[in-house]
């Protein structure tokens, strides 16, 4: 299976977890979208604890939704000022899987994400979301340091 034909940057997908790294990635993506007249898609993933347990799961879900909705308010305002079309989405699941799924769904031209500085132990045991996206994405991926 080959990669799709690259026809320029039309749809930029940003993975946003409200961290400083993600904020930085969002700044870069907004600038690129403005320059290239691209549409910006922002995805935030709520990761449930495993195995999910009733009360905790619902608490995590509600907390995540509220946190990301709050973060989206200034983002939409910034996009509006720059006349960038923006689409925000909050999903549940494993971050890398959901980012890849979203990229497939919208036929993203580029995925932009921040890189967290995990410890060697963390990377060895749990891996890195940015590495997984880099490995499996069918479009270019930009990791913002």
């Amino acid at each position, binding site marked *: 299976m080959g990669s799709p034909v690259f026809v320029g940057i039309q749809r930029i997908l940003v993975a946003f977890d409200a961290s400083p790294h993600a904020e930085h990635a969002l700044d870069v993506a907004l600038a690129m979208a403005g320059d290239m007249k691209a549409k910006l898609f922002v995805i935030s993933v709520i990761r449930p604890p495993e195995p999910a347990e*009733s009360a905790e799961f619902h608490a995590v879900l509600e907390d995540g939704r509220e946190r990301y909705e709050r973060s989206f308010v200034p983002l939409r305002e910034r996009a509006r000022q720059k006349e960038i079309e923006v689409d925000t989405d909050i999903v549940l*699941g494993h971050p890398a899987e959901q980012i890849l799924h979203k990229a497939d769904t919208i036929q993203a031209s580029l995925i932009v994400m921040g890189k967290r500085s995990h410890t060697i132990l963390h990377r060895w045991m749990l891996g890195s979301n940015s590495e997984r996206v880099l490995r499996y994405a069918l479009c270019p991926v930009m990791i913002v340091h």
Partner: protein
Amino acid sequence: MANTWALCALWVGLALAATLLAIWFKISTALSEIVVGTVAQLVIGVFLAGVFGFAPGGLAGNTQWITFLAGTGAIVLTFLAGAELDPTIFKTKWRESVVVGLAGFFGPFLGCTAVAHYVLHWPIMPSWLCGVALSTTSVAVVYAVMLELGFNVTEYGKAILAACFINDLGTVIALGLIFSPFTMKTLIFLVVSVVVFIGLPFLTPWFFKRYGGRVSELEAKYLLFFLFAMGGLAVWAGSEAVLPAYMIGMVLAGTVGKDHSLIRRLRTLTFGLLTPFYFIRAGSFVSVPALMAAPVTLLVLFGAKSLFKAVAVYPAVRIHKYDGKAGAYYTLMMSTGLTFGTISALFGLNHQIITQAQYSYIVGTVIASAVIPTMIANSFFLPRHLLPHPQAGKKAEQGAMRPVPAEEG
């Protein structure tokens, strides 16, 4: 006399450590607390016991105030689990839900009881307790998967979720009734329960509207009063306090369950203080030496739970035209369970129905069943959206999830 504050600091410190581990490893806090309780009992408690002057030999999990906090945690946690029921899901395909839910309960309940009795040669009462503890499913795990795949808005998804509630209702009723002799006390308990369960959905909204919304947290006191009162009545009748707690949660799901602010305050109380004591205590009673001495027992019980869940649930799901990976995936999902499994096992240990070794095997199996089925399901029965092909993504999009507010789910 034990140093209460030092003991409390030790337990809360363990809860803090468990929460940090849960955050680092992305696992549920309950699972982390059980494991930390087991390890702490084995290592830390033994070394620190002499230092602080409380009873040697571990974490002093049978201290009265710890037992109270842990018991309250189990009651409130069970209430919250019942309150998450969406009454509207029963309006769609309730027959399917009942069939799948009862299959999910009776299959492992009877099968694991038989295996414990005839294969492991446990006496009959520990075998029944084992069957009850391993009959559970996890509504939360299934709901999480439903949300990821977008099935939560379909009739099939709602039917499966309802089936999970019926499965757990079967577990709670079995736990509450099998181990208590049917006497006049039982009859009084049942009659009072029916009156309370019918009356509460009418009384509660009126009461909250009339007196609620104040800083004195009248709502929490009102709920705790009924939970403790009905729990006390259940114990007086020889039953288990979590039975009325789950039922009260279910009957109030349409009213109290939709009050986000109240549920959130109850969660703070539950997670911040009560459930750490419950899960760490549950873990502290697990005997690692017993598990090491006969690991085959653990494998037999885990195999029995998985087998009888599959044998019972898969045909029930297939009857309703969900076969292949979808059927296998949800059969595996319904094989999970953690909270009600540990509640049942701890009930058995507290009432001396099972020994500490049997408790350890059951809790070990419960923990394994909370993790392994999900891993197998995700490894071998991949949801469609994991497929990297764009066409697969487009198909999966039809069922793409959107997290829904609690009132919808």
